[in-house]
């Protein structure tokens, strides 16, 4: 079998047989503790500066950011952005409970469906899981409430993100993912996910994790940068200030909205002041 042939050739090259048990244990230990290496100093700064660094980096990479103080302002911020870009007020929305809970009824001109994206969608509104200040990067893991197609098919992608989810370095975002599974509503945890990571014996890696830094681009024509290759031409972030002094509540046990496709031309609009749902996971089941 080729597997044995390949492993055999590697071991011959290394002049040894299969690793002895104690050395395997050592390597298993390294996987389980997944030690961090050097983390650049640029993101090791106080909170407000971290958020400013994130915004600066997004803008450097041709993304745009609008800040809102309250979740109730999000529909208005999206409506304003689409109007300013001369885009029709129509979009595909991530079927995430935190987004469904926004007061959409306040902006009756906005039309949306909560589902995966199709080729005909011009605008998508995605739920931002986390972000990395170091390079202005969004972390967008896939699950039933955050379809991957929303990051790819529309010409314009809007991501709703909370400031409390901005971290300094990628390593912090990985640890958050390890801690929370993918999401409170579906997560790797508690669902019949098949992922099992040998290192600590529990699942956490979603099927797809996209780290997105700015809108799509190509430099293949004469090594000159042009925006709008195959992915979104515009990437806009609506950033909700949720200060750390007011810690987010535990996520409700909302059902994943996977049955959404045909259902929602308008999502239900339970009006609440500050939407505090979703991204914080319950402790491991």
């Amino acid at each position, binding site marked *: 079998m080729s597997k044995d042939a390949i*492993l055999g050739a*590697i071991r011959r090259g*290394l002049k040894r047989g299969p690793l002895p048990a104690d050395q395997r244990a050592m*390597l298993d230990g390294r996987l389980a503790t997944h030690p961090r290496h050097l983390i650049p100093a640029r993101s090791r700064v106080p909170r407000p500066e971290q958020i400013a660094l994130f915004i600066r980096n997004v803008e450097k990479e041709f993304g745009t950011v609008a800040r809102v103080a309250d979740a109730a302002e999000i529909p208005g911020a999206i409506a304003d952005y689409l109007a300013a870009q001369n885009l029709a007020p129509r979009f595909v929305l991530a079927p995430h409970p935190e987004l469904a809970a926004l007061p959409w009824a306040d902006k009756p001109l906005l039309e949306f469906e909560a589902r995966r994206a199709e080729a005909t969608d011009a605008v998508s509104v995605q739920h931002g899981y986390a972000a990395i200040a170091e390079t202005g990067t969004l972390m967008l893991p896939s699950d039933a409430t955050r379809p991957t197609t929303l990051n790819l098919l529309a010409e314009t992608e809007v991501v709703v993100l909370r400031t409390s989810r901005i971290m300094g370095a*990628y390593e912090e975002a990985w640890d958050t993912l390890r801690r929370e599974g993918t999401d409170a509503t579906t997560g790797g945890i508690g669902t019949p996910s098949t992922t099992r990571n040998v*290192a600590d014996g529990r699942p956490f890696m979603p099927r797809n994790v996209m780290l*997105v*830094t700015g809108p799509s681009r190509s430099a*293949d024509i004469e090594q000159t940068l042009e925006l709008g290759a195959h992915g979104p031409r515009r990437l806009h972030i609506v950033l909700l200030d949720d200060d750390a002094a007011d810690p987010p509540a535990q996520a409700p046990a909302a059902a994943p909205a*996977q049955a959404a496709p045909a259902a929602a031309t308008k999502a239900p609009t339970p009006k609440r002041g500050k939407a505090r749902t979703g991204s914080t996971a319950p402790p491991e089941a």
Partner: protein
Amino acid sequence: MVQVTSPAFKQNAARALADAGLQKALGKAKGAFLQRRAEAVARLPEFEALRDIGRDIKNHTLANLDFYLETYAANVERAGGTVHWCSTADEARAAVLGICQRAGARTVTKGKSMISEEIAVNDHLEKHGIEPVETDLGEYIIQLRREHPSHIIAPAFHLNREDWEADFRRMHTDLDPNRVFNERRDILAEARTKLRSRFLAADVGITGANFLIAETGSSVIVTNEGNGDLTQTLPRVHIALASIEKVVPTLEDATSLLRLLARSATGQDFSVYTTFSTGARRPGDLDGPEEYHVVLIDNGRSNMIGSEFQDMLRCIRCAACMNHCPVYGATGGHAYGWVYPGPMGSVLTPSLVGIDKAALLPNASTFCGKCESVCPVKIPLPNLMRHWREREFERHLTPATVRRNLGLWAWFAKRPQAYRIATRLAVGALKLLGGRKGSFRSLPLAGGWTEGRDLPVPEGGTFMARYAQQQRKR
């Protein structure tokens, strides 16, 4: 395998030097890469320290490669994926074809993958009635032209805007022939529209992998266009092609290498899309492939383990070495005659296709050392090329005239008395022949050398004669 034309490096290079279009494209592109990398490195004070870390992570992985590959494969399967271990390019092609045929595939979209070029999977699929569609913008035009990439991250490095326009007009015959391309953006927009329907229609998507992560069983792709993500998200089946040295232990290890990759490659702080794929669609997911396969390819790499060329397996394919190479800058990538050009290709190609077919490549170097000084994982490229030259000499692959002349030189070098007499005679003869002109336009027996430059007539005597003179004066 892609046909190897490396034995014709000299002819290839001569043709490249005389190709005005190519020289224009090279001249335009080169400077941009160098400057952008330099700026990105300057923005990150920790860059040098990260290079040491990158080297150490890769060395640790290679020293335990069997363990990490087995762990990786086990985790892929836990996540519902399938790993196909392939020793050779033939096996890998067969594995890909088998998956496509079982899926009843008619068209296959493809993200950029150098290993896919290495195993020439496109030809194989076509032969069996399956149409492969390259979706990276650069790869797309290369496929239209039925060429091969000339650069590992910028496949169309050798083309000018006029080439793009002409090819698009020639191939996209369903569009208005009188349309105008005012800007590069118009070319990009046309490719986007053309490829969108292909993405949606494809039955299978094939991508490469920049990294494989043992801890989680994930494959990682890095792109700016988003074509790789469309390729692996929309079709029913995703195949990731990866060579065995792509594996790293953990997400943290991959992260440290990712901090080096984009900066070294395009001079970006981070690429637009860095995507981690782990298994197939999960219960509840609204999109994503239903099948996830990894074709894990050796194709000669395991033989490099434990050899003097093991260091080459650290390569993360950033292309910094070729961007900074004066030889690549003069000839472009096609002259190298196989998949991997530039300094990394000069070391890797002989390892993978055999030194007998690639003996000239390790000689296509000025030994300026720039490649090693920019390599993010500190591969001693000039040294490795030197090893190949030694092996080439040992195996009598060096041309007979070179061997004879080196032998002659060695005979004199070992006999200082004779050496001095011979050089004194030679200097005298050259002076006599060169006369007052001060240089030779051509010399008998050295036509190749004088074709591109003049040989100055020696001034004064030999070094030893002048040294002796100086000593006497003191």
